[in-house]
């Protein structure tokens, strides 16, 4: 069986690649900027991602069967490609470092207080990045399984949380001015990163014609998830309390209290699902990074690059001294992500169009 990814796996790859630690802190960070109207910023962020997705899918469809790193080399020339690839690799490493660091902080707070954070980081890194060694088919299968877990846990979470919601907390709406709301989109940007995986996985898609449809559905799902998180957290805490939370989404599920139904401390279940969700996020990203490296060094095997990546990401993740610095340093991956998700696809798209016209 040649490498093939089905449509649903494609959708799952996008969703698991995007949903990571952003969903934890997004409601409170956006509430700090836009108050009750934060959800508008989230929706706008989703719309922009959808546009970018459209661009990227069109770009990938212009080069059927080829991964972005392959045709980038053609379009940009060797030197341009090296810059491109280096930026990509740094971006991946930083994103992985942030994800695993925030993840480890969460685990340390809620599950394992006394375990050194290095242990949590290294164990998660080794276990999750391992799938970077395998072919895309395996990565896609795992993404689909993790997406199923995510889906189930969301339904479970929403149902469990429902009785404690006070929807009047959503008001007052439309109090913030438009400029602030649009400024808030920048805050949501990090949570939508990861859509660039399309450029890789589309090459293996079974039915490339349906790619647009499924990728849009994926973006829609992610946006809905984030809006849900925002609405649920603000309904439970009210806007001022929400602004004070570090990880409102988790605090949300800790509020559940139904001793009659045995739903007293469900943070265990949520934490367990959380580990799997982050695994689904780290895995495809690791796979992507090995692909970049194998294209830089022009090797056929991409599996061996996981091994050197692990210690590098480990050290980067330990660099910030505390959680505040982690969030402060998110500027760098944000900028890089901006370049990769917006500038690069536009550039490649224009170049492809020019090249296409020239060949004709």
């Amino acid at each position, binding site marked *: 069986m040649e490498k093939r990814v089905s449509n*649903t796996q494609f959708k799952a790859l996008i969703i698991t690649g995007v949903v990571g630690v952003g969903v934890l802190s997004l409601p409170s960070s956006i509430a700090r900027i836009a108050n009750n109207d934060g959800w508008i910023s989230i929706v706008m962020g989703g719309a922009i991602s959808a546009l970018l997705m459209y661009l990227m899918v069109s770009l990938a469809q212009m080069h059927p069967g080829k991964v972005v790193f392959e045709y980038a080399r053609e379009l940009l020339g060797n030197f341009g490609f090296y810059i491109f690839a280096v930026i990509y690799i740094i971006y991946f490493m930083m994103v992985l470092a942030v994800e695993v660091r925030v993840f480890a902080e969460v685990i340390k707070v809620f599950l394992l207080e006394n375990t050194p954070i290095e242990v949590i980081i290294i164990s998660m890194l080794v*276990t999750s990045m391992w799938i970077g060694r395998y072919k895309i*088919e395996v990565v896609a299968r795992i993404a689909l*399984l993790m997406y*199923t877990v995510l889906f189930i846990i969301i339904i479970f979470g929403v149902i469990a949380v429902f009785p404690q919601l006070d929807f009047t907390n959503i008001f007052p709406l439309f109090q913030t001015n438009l400029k602030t709301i649009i400024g808030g989109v920048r805050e949501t940007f990090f949570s939508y990163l990861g859509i660039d995986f399309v450029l890789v996985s589309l090459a293996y898609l079974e039915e490339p014609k349906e790619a647009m449809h499924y990728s849009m559905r994926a973006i829609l799902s992610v946006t809905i998830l984030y809006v849900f998180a925002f609405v649920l957290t603000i309904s439970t805490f009210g806007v001022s309390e929400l602004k004070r939370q570090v990880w409102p989404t988790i605090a949300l599920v800790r509020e559940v209290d139904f*001793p009659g139904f045995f739903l007293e*401390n469900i943070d265990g279940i949520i934490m367990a699902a959380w*580990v*799997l969700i982050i695994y689904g996020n780290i895995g495809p990203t690791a796979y992507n990074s090995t692909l970049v490296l194998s294209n830089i060094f022009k090797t056929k095997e991409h599996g061996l690059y996981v091994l050197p990546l692990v210690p590098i990401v480990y050290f980067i993740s330990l660099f910030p001294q505390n959680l505040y610095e982690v969030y402060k340093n998110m500027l760098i991956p944000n900028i890089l992500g901006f370049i990769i998700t917006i500038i690069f696809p536009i550039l490649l798209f224009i170049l492809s169009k020019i090249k296409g016209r020239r060949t004709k």
Partner: protein
Amino acid sequence: MEYNIPLKKTLKENSDELKKILNECDDIIFRELKVGSNKPVSMELIFVDGMIDRDDLSSFVLRPLLRISDDILSNGNKSIDSLIDMLSKENIQISDMKVIQNMEEVIKAVLSGETVLLIDGSEKAIDLSTRGWPSRSIGEPVSEETVRGPRDGMTETLKTNIALIRRRIRDTNLKVKMMQIGKRSKTDMAVMYMEDIVEPRLLNETYKRLNNLKVDEIIDSSMLESLIEDHCYSPFPQIENTERPDAVAASLYEGRVAIIVDNSPFALLVPATVGTLMQSTEDYYTRWSVASIVRIIRYFAAFLAVLAPSLYIAVTSYHPGLLPTRLAYYVAASRVNVPFPSVIEAFLMEITLELLREAGTRISGPIGTTIGIVGGLIIGQAAVDAGIVSPLMIIIVSVTTISSFAIPSYELATALRFFRFLFMIYAAVLGLYGVMLGIIVMITHMAKLDSFGIPFTSPYSGLGREKGDLRDTIIRVPFQNMKKRPRFTFPKNRTRLK
């Protein structure tokens, strides 16, 4: 040991040669006879006593041979060849025979339980099919009993097994290809498939792997299984086996390939996935609503069988905060005077249970049942009374064991047993986080397994191509709704004609 030499003309030469090759094989009989009284022709029958049907030999071979009248013998039978022709077509009353000319074929025939008739003056010999040996009567397969459904199980005789399957598929498209594997054992085996359904690539892959085998012996189909698997180092089985001919027939209808090995009642079904390993034939014989619920329970049982002890360790040693308050107090109270930490407790009980299991498999019959009951009750009760383990641990361990028996495929259950211990270690080091890491390791491992090119985790992992398969995995929809064959084997013909 190549005997690829043609037979000689004289009986004595052939016979001596054979006796030299087969010396010290006292179970091989050389029966000389002289046919005809006028100009008698010397013949010799060679067979293995114990592998032939003696009645066949005496009544339908010896008797007609010895009764040949001289007239027929000399009448028009100028050459030995025409004699052989006459004998084989008109005289000997065995249902299946063929003419052979090669020493190797003679030896192969004799060692397979057929009788070879050597005739003086001819380089040809006649291979008579007289196979018959004591074999187990057809009874209910021991490992896969059902409440409703046929109760014939396969036996150790290849021909019987093929027949049992052929009865269920009276279609010309059912092809049976015989092969011999094993240099010394020369075990017969048959590859069966439905020609218009099976995917050619799957079939070719199977043939390729079988033909590439270079082994001395195949004692049981399980040896064959591990030799042709994709990943023999994985604890998970990638080939399914079954004793039931109806299960084989159903699999063939779905586009799978069956390999039946002589001397083994277990047929191999290729490919195998998590979906198929968790299905039991009984699901198709009970009503669909019950079968669906049972299937869901089965998946839950698999989940429990792997995770229960490790979750217990994680929760009691690391995260009592995850339990509701009342439960936390209760568990704490039940463990008050237990001297061991829960890790040791869990390992102790699990190992004891494994010992019990091993002991139980060796002893069957009434003693075995007693040991099971005695072991379970007394050891468990005594341990609790002595205060070595907490009662909750006993419950967890017994639930785990019972759950692992709910899994239809024994190999899959053993794979999960292996992972259960791995998870317990993970839980002991890092609590619930460790358990989740273990799950990640297990899922990663399962995702990379292929069974003859089909992903092992189908149909749960590739929903696009295999969406329809879900109708027959977690639940079972009524037969009226199963109009198409499942896709995971990529069959050529998908319609089931409902």
